[in-house]
């Protein structure tokens, strides 16, 4: 139904969309997720030419909409859009907002348009607000009217541009349940959203967008449970990290401790976990210390806000060296402590790089 080939979009020197190629089939519900500023909304707005693409081609039902001869307004009629800021026509009543398009664009009689619009308003639960004006509605009500306004044009596909981002948390669910119902009825939809749980259960396919690309795409299960690529993982698990580089034996240990404490506080890591982390770091540094004049150590602490997993990653360059595997130690107290607090310890040596990953017990 929608075929996008090598779509790109630039604003002057700023490249927003690099090179996007994809297809959306009839009846599919596609969620587009990703960090802000990665071109999700721009991608959606390019699909109905609210933003003019800088390159590539877009086919709707086989028709190239970037062709000068194409009747774009006609195509937009079957591909309506729901905006983050609702954009209800403020000079028209709720009912008139719904009937304006059908009457003026499709030549439907007023009586018929009124009847159909009332049915749609009933569907979104706002029939009793038909005579009200947009400024008399709450945010959630406005967005439901906007969705009904879209449906009044009987579109084949609806583009949702962050439909719940401007809403109070208490009003998000009323809008999402209307969209869920549309999905159940088989409407083709492309939804830019930050509601992960919603994206997961409403869509057939998820696009993770990053760096102006569809960075990874797959079923919700693939993307949310087993993301393959690093950036996807970081985003899905909402991972925040802290990096500290050590170059000499005489590094400032207390400064390191203080910075770890600040990071833990920011991430709201429990006190016990924090203490464990500090002890493990200390023991590891004792193990690394004799070698620190020759090698450079990079310590990374990563915390997933979603799973509350805490990971410590130690990286050095040079010959294969695993501090946990050192035979020349005076005692194994340090190793014991590390083993007590961590549940997975993974060592990898590849391409001149040593990588030791420790996952803390929860």
């Amino acid at each position, binding site marked *: 139904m929608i075929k996008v080939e090598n779509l790109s979009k630039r604003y002057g020197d700023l490249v927003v969309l690099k090179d996007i190629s994809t297809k959306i089939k009839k009846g599919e519900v596609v969620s587009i997720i990703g960090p802000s500023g990665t071109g999700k909304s721009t991608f959606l707005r390019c699909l*109905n030419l609210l933003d003019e693409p800088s390159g590539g081609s877009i086919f709707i039902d086989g028709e190239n909409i970037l062709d000068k001869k194409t009747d774009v*307004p006609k195509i*937009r009629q079957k591909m309506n859009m729901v*905006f983050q800021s609702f954009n209800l*026509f403020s000079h028209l009543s709720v009912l008139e907002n719904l009937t304006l*398009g059908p009457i*003026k664009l499709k030549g439907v009689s007023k009586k018929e348009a009124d009847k159909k619009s009332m049915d749609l308003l009933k569907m979104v639960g706002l029939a009793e607000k038909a005579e009200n004006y947009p400024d008399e509605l709450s945010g959630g009500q406005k967005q439901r009217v906007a969705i009904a306004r879209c449906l009044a044009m009987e579109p084949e596909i609806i583009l949702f541009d962050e439909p719940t981002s401007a809403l109070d948390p208490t009003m998000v669910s009323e809008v999402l349940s209307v969209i869920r119902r549309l999905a159940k009825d088989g409407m083709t939809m492309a939804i830019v959203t930050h509601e992960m749980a919603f994206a997961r259960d409403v869509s057939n396919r998820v696009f993770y967008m990053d760096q102006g690309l569809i960075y990874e795409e797959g079923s919700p299960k693939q993307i949310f449970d087993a993301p393959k690529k690093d950036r996807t993982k970081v985003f899905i698990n909402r991972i925040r990290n802290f990096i500290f580089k050590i170059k000499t034996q005489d590094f400032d240990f207390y400064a390191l401790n203080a910075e770890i404490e600040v990071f833990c506080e920011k991430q709201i890591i429990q006190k016990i976990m924090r203490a464990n982390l500090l002890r493990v770091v200390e023991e590891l540094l004792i193990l690394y210390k004799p070698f620190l004049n020759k090698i450079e150590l990079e310590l990374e602490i990563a915390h997933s806000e979603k799973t509350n997993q805490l990971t410590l990653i130690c990286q050095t360059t040079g010959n294969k060296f695993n501090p946990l595997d050192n035979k020349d130690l005076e005692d194994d107290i340090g190793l014991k402590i590390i083993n007590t607090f961590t549940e997975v310890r993974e060592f990898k040596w590849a391409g001149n790089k040593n990588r030791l990953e420790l996952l803390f017990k929860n």
Partner: protein
Amino acid sequence: MRNVSYIKIFFLMLFFIFPLQSNANGEAQSTSNTKLISSLDDLKNKRIGVMLGSTHDAFAHKQYPQAEIFQYKGPADVLLGVKSGKTDVGIYNSVSLTEILKIDPELGLIDKPFEFSPVGFGFNKKNIELHSQFNAFFKTIKDNGVYEDMIDRWTKKGITDMPKIDTPNKNGILVAGHVSDGGLPFVTLRNNENVGLNIELAKRFAAYLGKDIRFDDMEFGGLIPALTTGKIDFIAVTLMFTEERKQKINFGEPYYEIGMSAFALKKNIASYSHENQTTNGPTFFTSILNSFQSNIIQEKRYLLILDGLKTTIIISILATIFGTLLGGIICFLRMSKNKLLNIPAKIYISILRGTPVLVILMIIFYVVFASVNINPIIVATIAFGMNCGAYAAEIFRSGIEGIEKGQMEAGIAMGFNKIKTFIYIILPQTVRRILPIYKGEIITLVKMTSIVGYIAVQDLTKASDIIRSRTFDAFFPLIMIAILYFLISLILIHILDYLEKITDPKYKRKARLKS
């Protein structure tokens, strides 16, 4: 409640202005007490009122370099200047003054008339044919005794009725420029009609040519420019022969000889000082009644007011419509991204906002349409419309730009093209947004029309000028038209308020729910 407050304002106006009026008279008395005027020599250090561009003006400047000279637009203002004490002395043509003094006991002449000069009509130097036709015509009436009869009736016997003269529209129309408040026996407005020696002479001339005649009432100073630019065919006033004028225009055969006279309030003139000045001033209400009688009822002057009112309203409406349409177009050009369109629009707006409307009005009348015979009402409509358009364009632009981008996007995304989005979504919201500011603009426009007298349109202000020139009463006509302008604005405000109300979508709902 609101109506009551308007009435209050009206009465407040009355009570503030009446005392001021009597104050002005008191002041005049105190300044004039210094020294009485006994001869023309005494004028040398006085304040002298003259008509701008007249021979009196030139004479006063030459003869009395020490004096302070006030140049007025018309004879009525010269008279009022003297009567209200703004000037000590006025100079005007001796013949008309004699007539005026007959009905105004307050004023008196100083010495005898002086500087006698022949007077005649003025013709365009390029139009030699009309000039010689006039001279031939004048010879005819002199020969057959008609001329003598005219002079006899108007100046000697004081018969001021116009004889019936047929001016058939056989050979087109003759346009005469004149000043309707020149004063008898030459010209005056009575029962909303021009009468006088000048008028009769001009009409007879038109009849002689087999043409109809139209009199364009203008400022005295604007007559010669109007003639040279072809706005009028000839000047039908008692134009004194001067060398300066002869360089610009041709004079017809002189039909009369008049001098100048200086005049002042009798109580300031030595030769009248013995006269008893005790006059019992009429009471407040009888003076109002008298004013009403003389300014409105007498000689059907209300017709003047009604005609003026009609003209003011017509110009206001046409200029509003034209200005709004023009404003829409300019706004569209101004908002265009194409520099070829938006730069001319920007220039237009800044020029029209940066020049006085009066100047624009005169430029359009005397320069742009110099050689075109165009109805001055249309000229006024164009000038005020152009001015209004410049302001309207900016009002529209700010209204349109004030509407969130999302409204446009929602329309576009729904499948409307740009024009339809504008018509169905942007325009209705813009109208509602700009009405409060636009209201003020329209009211300003209505008041602005009061300057059309400059291009010979007889509007409300001009009507009051004419009445003033006949009754020498500054107060009543001015207050009356002030009230009339106020009423027009008031009605307009109510109409626009109503418009504002019905464009409120919630008002529509209320109406719907009621029905």
